[in-house]
């Protein structure tokens, strides 16, 4: 544990990351697919008689596209950086040290994307037709390369493949088992989003129903590749997932948190159903284009956003309890350290760099246990809140629960001594107005254990007789 834990109230670090990421993922995919849309629309407009009209419409599309992707897309992208630094500094550090030049290369694509887009947009009235087509195509190609790169790092976190801390083989980590299916799914989804954005901009065409229908039908076609192929690719992706993820999914983690971890199952289906709704909605739009309103179009985009939310939470939960599967737990415990029994059983605060000097077996002791060991994933009263989740804790239940923390499947193993567990249990009990001290928790627990052991002994003797 190298870094301080950001105890952001209510949301907690992990939900801050999730919120920013969910917004960013939709926009960034749209930013790439939209490039292909511009390119094809440019070429198409050269071939048809009312091309000038199409290009005028395209200018509207580009204005929306430019502001939306550069303001919200680029900034939420930077925002993900800010948030992961705060929520998981240790993991961010690992990713950065392993992939910094991949990211630097990705940055080249950012600069390229932006500059080309500006040349395209600001040169609207002065560039030649050939130049406009070239710029649109170049934009798409460059933008797609940014996906090509970031996809390696994103999939690495869930399926690091043959990469290990020792071999540090960047190529193995980058082109990991999840890489290809994920790249293909994302590429198709990008086209889909571009189509939805196209439909939305087409609804601004007011007094030319024919033209509006034409543009809506043109845009709707962009949804077809995803509608046909994403289901197949999802099966492939599924086959690359770690076994533990599939187990979570299948079990729906019955019993944990009152079944709350069915979350992973529910989020998966949220993504699937949203996808299906988008396809259905687009089909209806293509069938009756004149009836499509702005509100319909924006609803389709919102449903897509909900789908992304499902997919992102699925991805996040699929990794639990790790940030980097099999390598680093979400609370910055290294997997290889977790196997070192002696380390795990040391008094936790003695090697926690960021704990102040606290009196052992006090409330403060328990509070810092919570802050440093649980707060990366839990808040007290907001996201994944522990106050309600520990409502029924008794001394013995708490101490035992903590001892078996990892057996829940979604949490890392507990680090620390019996005293640490008692102090933490006492802290949670205090949150509910129960002022049992850590020492009293320990006593009760030990007495119960002793009684149990005696009872066991007694029954053993009984049986022997």
């Amino acid at each position: 544990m190298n870094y301080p834990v950001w105890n952001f109230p209510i949301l907690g670090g992990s939900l801050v990351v999730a919120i920013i990421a969910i917004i960013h993922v939709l926009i960034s995919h749209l930013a790439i697919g939209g490039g292909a849309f511009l390119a094809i629309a440019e070429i198409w407009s050269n071939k048809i008689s009312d091309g000038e009209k199409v290009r005028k419409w395209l200018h509207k599309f580009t204005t929306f596209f430019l502001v939306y992707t550069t303001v919200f897309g680029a900034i939420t992208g930077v925002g993900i950086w800010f948030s992961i630094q705060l929520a998981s500094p240790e993991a961010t550090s690992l990713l950065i040290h392993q992939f910094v030049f991949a990211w630097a290369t990705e940055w080249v694509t950012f600069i390229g994307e932006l500059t080309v887009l500006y040349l395209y947009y600001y040169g609207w009235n002065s560039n030649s037709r050939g130049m406009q087509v070239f710029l649109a195509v170049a934009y798409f190609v460059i933008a797609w390369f940014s996906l090509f790169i970031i996809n390696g790092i994103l999939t690495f976190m869930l399926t690091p493949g043959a990469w290990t801390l020792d071999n540090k083989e960047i190529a193995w980590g980058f082109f990991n088992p999840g890489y290809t299916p994920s790249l293909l799914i994302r590429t198709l989804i990008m086209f889909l989003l571009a189509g939805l954005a196209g439909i939305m901009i087409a609804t601004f065409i007011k007094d030319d129903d024919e033209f509006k229908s034409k543009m809506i039908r043109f845009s709707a076609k962009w949804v077809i590749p995803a509608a046909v192929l994403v289901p197949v690719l999802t099966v492939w992706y599924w086959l690359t997932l770690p076994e533990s993820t599939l187990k979570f999914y299948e079990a729906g983690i019955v019993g944990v948190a009152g079944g709350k971890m069915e979350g992973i199952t529910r989020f998966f289906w949220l993504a699937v159903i949203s996808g299906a709704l988008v396809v259905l909605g687009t089909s209806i739009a293509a069938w009756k284009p004149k009836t499509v309103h702005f509100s319909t179009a924006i609803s389709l985009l919102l449903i897509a956003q909900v789908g992304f939310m499902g997919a992102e939470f699925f991805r996040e939960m699929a990794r639990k309890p790790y940030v980097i599967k099999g390598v680093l737990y979400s609370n910055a415990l290294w997997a290889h350290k977790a196997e070192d029994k002696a380390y795990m059983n040391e008094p936790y605060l003695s090697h926690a760099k960021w704990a102040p000097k606290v009196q052992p077996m006090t409330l403060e002791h328990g509070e810092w246990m919570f802050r440093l060991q649980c707060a990366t994933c839990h808040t007290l009263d907001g996201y994944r809140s522990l106050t309600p989740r520990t409502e029924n804790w008794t001394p013995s239940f708490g101490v035992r629960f903590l001892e078996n923390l990892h057996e829940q499947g979604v949490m890392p193993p507990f680090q620390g001594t019996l005293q640490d567990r008692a102090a933490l249990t006492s802290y949670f009990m205090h949150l509910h107005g129960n002022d049992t001290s850590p020492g009293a928790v320990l006593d009760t627990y030990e007495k119960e254990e002793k009684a149990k052991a005696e009872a066991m002994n007694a029954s053993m003797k009984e049986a022997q007789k």
Partner: protein
Amino acid sequence: MNPSHLIAALIAQTQAQVPLPSPDPLGYPVPAILLQILSYFTLGLHFIAVNFTLGGLIYLVWTKIRKVDNGASEFLSSSLPLGFSYLVTLGIPPLLFVQVMYGQMFYSSSVIIGAFWILVVPLLILAYGMLYLNKLKKDTRPNTRLVILGISLLAMLTIGFIYVNNLTLSMTPGMWMEKYTANPAGSQLNHGEPTLFARYALFMSPALVVAGAALVLVGILRSKWRGDDAGVPIHELGMKGHLIGRVATLAAAGALISTLPKEFLDTLMAGPGKLFLIFGVGLAALSTAMVVVAAQKKGTVFGIIGIVLMVLEVIMFIAVRDFLRQIYLAEFFKFEDVPVHEQWGMVGIFVASMVAGLALLIVLTVKVSKSAIARYKESHAA
């Protein structure tokens, strides 16, 4: 006891409790010197873009308040969103490299001021969004426009302040423990840091300098392409602002020097920092001379040389800034402590893509600009 001894004593006393993270197990992907160079260049471009955008915004607000319509506001309104976009994008590589080089310090300080650090994100959207709103909404009432621009300006100034808080805190590990334990939610700034405000002033005041030089060039080009004197008020405004900015920067630099711990300053001046400082000052003088000549003679080339020298000047000062950081951190951390696991293959891919990318962008930009300039000339030909 004199203050520097006091500080030394304080540091010695708190050192036992400094929660310094150990360096990342993966080590550096290339020798630190290369990371430094990459960081200086890209951070230099970031600072130029920050200063252009912030300064441009100040000029724009000024023209709106004074209700002067000299063409500067038209240029600024349409170019500030671009400036913002590049300031963000050019911030990315130094953000990568600072994490590689100084991750232990940078992550720690970011978490300690976490609530403010994450606030940068909505502030960026606000500042940037307002610039587009200003550009795209043509029919806004003057006062509404001032509000829009004012929000953007305030947001930018706040972001800069948060940055200075984070970076100064990242250089003073002795302060961490107390701050973190008092407020683990991170809703605090680096109060108590003696250099904070002077440093902030030093980073913000070049805004007028950089944007002023840009306005000089824009004014000259405008007159030239139109074949009239339409650009004169623009380059005069830029000239004045540039000089005011220089004076303000000098004052801020003096203030910073007076707040720096003396032994740090001495160490800096005993090393290569001195050389870079002298180069920086020299380049600053030269660049301002060029800008003045450009404004006098309406010489585009002088203006361009002045701006190029200014970029080099900023890079020199960035090196000095980094040496100072190493002096602050000397007793906690040295580059030599971190192992290097080389990734030359990845560096090759990066360099190749960078060269290819830049070449393509330059060719395209020249082409597009040529047709845009031709069109501009055509539409303004009397």
